[in-house]
């Protein structure tokens, strides 16, 4: 992000740019997702209009919701563990902001270019489990407790297929660095055909499918929304939250959806790169974020499409899906990828 500017910027300036850029990179896609998909697409699917009053076609509805949440009382249950209760939403949100660090937006546009980028991303994505457990336990409510424990079980179970699905990509790219994974796709070739590079969605299609399913579960979106199952646990671990803290959970949910989709598009769809263009051209420093955003919208469309159409799994069923289907399948995928990598 910083290196595109040729002038020297002092450290505090760089930090400010990074913080503002990080906020924008997390919050803008989240807002777009909530308005375009959660408000409008969902209404379209459900044959209703959705928000229409706030701004043109209800486009300012999200701001109105934020304003509403700010006005509301920040309620703490009497028996709640006040400190943990107050901190939990921030822990959940923190994992989202840590995730964005390693996402590349262009050849020279990134926050941190870690050599172990994807490893770091998968590691910090689990931090949200702690926040959810904190929220579930500190709320001193049985519904929250059930929701928190369900979430913990589910997130840990689906961490494995998520990691294993990424393994295929890592084997094929030969690196953990997110930026280099993009280059590997741009400069790669599919069994000798090099016209469009090698977006890993083609060669790693099983991995992509597994990653999508596991991501859906990590985000606790339907059909994997057992932790928040509103028809039985009211709102799961969020039941006792109100006002600004509930808003933080809400932002966390959709911002994480956006950031996870960014990682998915970097891993499988080529990130900021467009097939047919030279990845080293300076154009991508400007175009890259827009391209990435477009790909994010594609991936999140799938997430939200599943969300609107499927009923939810029961807890034991989703565990079975993780352990008996996804993990063996992803192991097979890794073995196949390894063999093909050696052969070709």
């Amino acid at each position, binding site marked *: 992000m910083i290196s595109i500017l040729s002038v020297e910027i002092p450290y505090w300036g760089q930090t400010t740019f990074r913080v503002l850029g990080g906020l924008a990179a997390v919050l803008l896609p989240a807002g777009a997702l909530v308005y375009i998909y959660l408000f409008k697409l969902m209404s379209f699917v459900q044959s209703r209009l959705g928000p229409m009053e706030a701004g043109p076609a209800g486009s300012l509805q999200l701001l109105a919701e934020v304003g509403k949440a700010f006005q509301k009382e920040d309620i703490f249950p009497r028996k709640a563990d006040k400190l943990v209760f107050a901190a939990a939403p921030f822990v959940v949100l923190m994992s989202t902001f840590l995730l964005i660090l390693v996402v590349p937006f262009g050849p020279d546009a990134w926050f941190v270019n870690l050599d172990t980028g994807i490893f770091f991303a998968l590691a910090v994505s689990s931090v949200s489990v702690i926040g959810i457990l904190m929220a579930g336990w500190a709320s001193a409510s049985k519904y929250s407790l059930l929701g928190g424990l369900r979430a913990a079980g589910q997130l840990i179970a689906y961490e494995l297929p998520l990691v294993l699905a990424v393994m295929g990509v890592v084997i094929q790219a030969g690196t953990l660095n997110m930026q280099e994974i993009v280059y590997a796709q741009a400069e790669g070739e599919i069994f000798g055909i090099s016209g469009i590079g090698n977006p890993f969605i083609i060669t790693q299609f099983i991995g992509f499918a597994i990653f999508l399913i596991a991501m859906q579960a990590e985000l606790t979106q339907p059909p994997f929304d057992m932790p928040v199952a509103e028809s039985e646990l009211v709102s799961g671990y969020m039941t006792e939250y109100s006002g600004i803290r509930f808003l933080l959970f809400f932002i966390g949910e959709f911002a994480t959806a956006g950031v996870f989709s960014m990682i998915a598009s970097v891993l499988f769809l080529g990130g900021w790169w467009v097939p047919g263009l030279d990845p080293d051209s300076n154009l991508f420093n400007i175009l890259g974020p827009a391209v990435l955003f477009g790909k994010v919208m594609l991936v999140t469309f799938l997430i939200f499409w599943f969300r609107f159409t499927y*009923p939810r799994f029961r807890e034991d069923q989703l565990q079975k899906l993780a352990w008996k289907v996804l993990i063996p399948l992803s192991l097979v995928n890794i073995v196949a990828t390894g063999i093909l990598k050696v052969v070709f």
Partner: protein
Amino acid sequence: MTTQIPDLSEQEQLRYISQQAADARVNVEIETEGMTLNLGPQHPATHGTLRIIAKLDGEQVVAAEPVMGYMHRGYEKLAEVRTYPQVTTLVNRIDWVGSFANETPFILAAEKLMEVEAPPRAQYIRTILHEMSRIANVILGIGDMGVQVGAVTPIFFAFRDREYVLNQIEAVTGGRFHPNFDRIGGLKDDLPAGWIQNTKNAMEKVRDFCDQIEELMYGNEIFQARTRGIGIIPKDVGLAYGLSGVNIRGSGVDWDVRRDNMSPGLVYDQVDWKVWTHPDGDSYSRMWVRLQEVREGTKIVDQLLDQIPSGPIMAKVPRIIKVPAGEAYVETENPLGVMGYYVVSKGDLNPYRVKIRSASFNNVSITPWLLKGVYVPDIITILGSLYFILGDIDR
């Protein structure tokens, strides 16, 4: 362990050791304290104020007890101080999503006591409206089942297509929710112009909804995984608990009051229709029978619309209705099950006593038996598949 193995034969020794090991295993296992979970009275799944006290072991239900009466409105007692025509206003608030069907059995009971019979046209329209309120009710139940298992979209489809039916009910009765249209000896008004064709169109829309929802929801693997084999009610248990309507037909009992015990004043015998049953008795079979019931309902309405006779819609009844002394019990097949009114008259303007047999009260009474041993998510599935309306439980 310092326990001495007593001097025994080899075989007994082995048995003793294995027993000790088994005991040790039991002791080592983590003992979790049971948790009591209050589902309700305010809970999104009960769409009303039903409370279920569930004792949980982890996520498994050890015992469940429904607590009713949070919405008791005392209609049986109130009916004693209302004149007969006024009672319909009360009772169509019992099952509020299929209101007209609540009026029918009461009016039929009063007609039985007065020994009047509604003219044929009124009987036909009455049956049509009864069946349309069934469609309006059950469509909502099907959509709601989607919400209970976590799919948010079906209920919006249900609300959308239910509106066509409600519009037709409103066109003839003037009320979407509380028609208050049935009268002793006939009906309040005749049909408005063009109603028959519009209703046929609405029935077409309802059939489309059934096809759509069958594909979208019933065919969904997750929906089937969530409902098949969950909450199985065997035939004899269901009958012992007094279940009725779809809930007992979903267990394979071929019993429908419309066919088997039709009270005079309705014309179900004039049309060609079928009583659907399903042998499984689980949540899925109940919902499946409900879907077929809606389809069958649209067929009944279509046929009745074709053969509706002309003529008056009110029989000759006195202006001030005094029901002769006597007792009458009339039951009809309502959307939620069998609904009956036991009316005792002493020859006054008011009934002396009215006992309402509402379907949901009996249907929900099986929950302590049914919810034993299921998981928490299945509580909601089972409650959704039993499909009760809180007003129908508490009255």
